[in-house]
């Protein structure tokens, strides 16, 4: 794959891969106006891997649809790979790959035919389109299914085919809308690995949307948290979380012991303490490093905890901290991780 990639030399644009200025989109249906995206100001550099994270309805797809020329903005502007998404649609389309929420490959078609046809659409010669399709089939492990009707493929296979379709022309910017939604955990993990590898190998800019916290956390160098059509945070996952501190949860024999321990722990600088019956939550920076010392102190004071848990902050905690709502509330498929407790605690 690599030699072919180098052969295509159109990386002439040097500015940021994506710039948006006050990008806004309203929908009006039945006289009701939905402000799907509200004044998005964003700059994404070439080669970045960015995740838009937000609950369903946050405006992620609408943003991607504007950036990929599918719908025009109501207000504001955006450029992708140096081309304006309204006035230079064809240039934008030539430069980008798009893997939408549905299936890019037609259900009545054969996978390989779709790859070739997509290559032809991007101006490859018949021979080049065939060669490129063969490369992608090989690279994305589609050999066993590429010559079958798309409707007979499994969800994971179809998703890989969709991604292959988005890569046919070695796009400078690749957009993926909820790439792993609907996949089982194993396939989701494989897909994340694939995206990570493609990004590392190609040096393309990759923008994906997700409502899976773990996905944004595991994949992206940069996480743009979106809610109600606005960006509410934009940083690396590590930095977003480091502001919050670890959660140290201590269990005691009785509520009285918990209250006494809380009084002792008042001294810990910059800590937030919540007592709920015999249980005590302490949120503090570097809590995992402090916990040994804390236990020694409490034991010396005669209130040794009977149970200790330390949890690193998650992106859900970040979202909760910013919005007062848990992102997991909107997810039906995820494992129950006790996040509801955390939610009531901080919301209180």
């Amino acid at each position: 794959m690599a030699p072919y990639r180098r052969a295509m030399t159109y990386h002439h644009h040097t500015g940021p891969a994506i710039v948006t200025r006050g990008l806004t989109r309203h929908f009006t249906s039945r006289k009701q106006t939905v402000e799907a995206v509200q004044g998005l100001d964003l700059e994404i550099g070439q080669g970045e891997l960015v995740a838009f994270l937000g609950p369903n309805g946050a405006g992620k797809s609408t943003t991607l649809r504007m950036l990929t020329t599918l719908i025009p903005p109501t207000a504001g502007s955006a450029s992708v790979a140096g081309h304006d998404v309204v006035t230079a649609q064809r240039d934008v389309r030539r430069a980008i790959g798009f893997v939408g929420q549905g299936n890019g490959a037609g259900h009545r078609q054969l996978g390989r035919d779709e790859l070739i046809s997509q290559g032809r659409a991007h101006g490859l010669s018949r021979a080049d389109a065939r060669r490129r399709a063969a490369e992608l089939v090989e690279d994305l492990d589609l050999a066993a299914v590429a010559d079958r009707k798309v409707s007979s493929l499994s969800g994971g296979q179809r998703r890989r085919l969709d991604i292959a379709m988005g890569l046919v022309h070695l796009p400078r910017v690749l957009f993926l809308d909820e790439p792993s939604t609907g996949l089982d955990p194993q396939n989701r993990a494989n897909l994340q690995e694939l995206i990570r590898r493609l990004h590392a190998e190609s040096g393309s800019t990759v923008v994906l949307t997700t409502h899976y916290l773990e996905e944004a956390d595991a994949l992206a160098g940069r996480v743009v948290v979106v809610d109600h059509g606005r960006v509410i945070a934009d940083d690396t996952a590590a930095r977003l979380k480091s502001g919050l501190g670890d959660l140290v949860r201590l269990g005691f024999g009785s509520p009285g012991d918990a209250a006494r321990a809380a009084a002792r722990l008042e001294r810990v600088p910059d800590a937030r303490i919540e007592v709920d019956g015999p249980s005590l939550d302490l949120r503090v920076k570097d809590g995992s490093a402090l916990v040994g010392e804390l236990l020694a102190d409490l034991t010396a004071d005669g209130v040794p905890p009977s149970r200790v848990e330390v949890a690193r902050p998650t992106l859900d905690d970040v979202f909760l901290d910013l919005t007062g709502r848990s992102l997991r509330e909107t997810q039906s498929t995820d494992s129950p991780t006790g996040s509801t407790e955390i939610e009531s605690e901080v919301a209180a």
Partner: protein
Amino acid sequence: MSTFVQDTVNVMNRELKPVWREPMAVVFAMIQPLVFLGLFAPLLPEMAAGDSALQWFVPGIVAMTALMGASFTGANLMEEMQSGSHERQLVSPLGRPALLVGRALKEVVPMLMQVAIIVLVVTPFSFDLHLGGVLAAALVLSLFSIGIGALSFALALASKGEDWMFWTIQQTLLFPALLTAGVLLPVDGAPRWLEVVSMLNPMTYVVDATRALFAGTFPVDVVAQGVLGAGIVAALGLAVGVRAMRRSS
């Protein structure tokens, strides 16, 4: 080759892939006209002077097959709108007009296959095959199919993926178009209003020209009107279709 031609050929080839791979689907799509043929043909009255009724009826069935096949085709686009592959094509550099024109042109192929099947089926019976006339009629019907196909795609785009809307409108228009064109029964002697509707229906002229050509005759005025009727459908269909495709998102 211009980008438009290249894109159109690309879109048309893609649409034809399933047709070549599963030609039986083309036969299944014409079950209804074939049933009409089988049921009605024995009921047809004998005509005067050795004219077989089949000779009159078959061209109508051929036109009906063309109309049905092409008017159903929007359902394929609808499916692609729902699955996401239409969206994928919209994000590719393929021109909007090519996305519509390529699809509409493809309609000619299944139509020709169906005409061939009908002619093969009826030739052993009291139907005289005039090959030149059939081929000339196929040209007129090709124009007609392109136009009807384009209108069907426009309807699919306007329905925004709502199946019920597409099928309701398609079915509502289909049978009046067939009946007023005189496909199954002659419109001669019908009430005045029906005659007017029939005169305004471009398909009427397509059917008349097909009948004349299938009979091995070449009345220039009838054939010219048929070409004009089909041409109007094609021009209107492509104009409306391209407009709908440009607005598609």
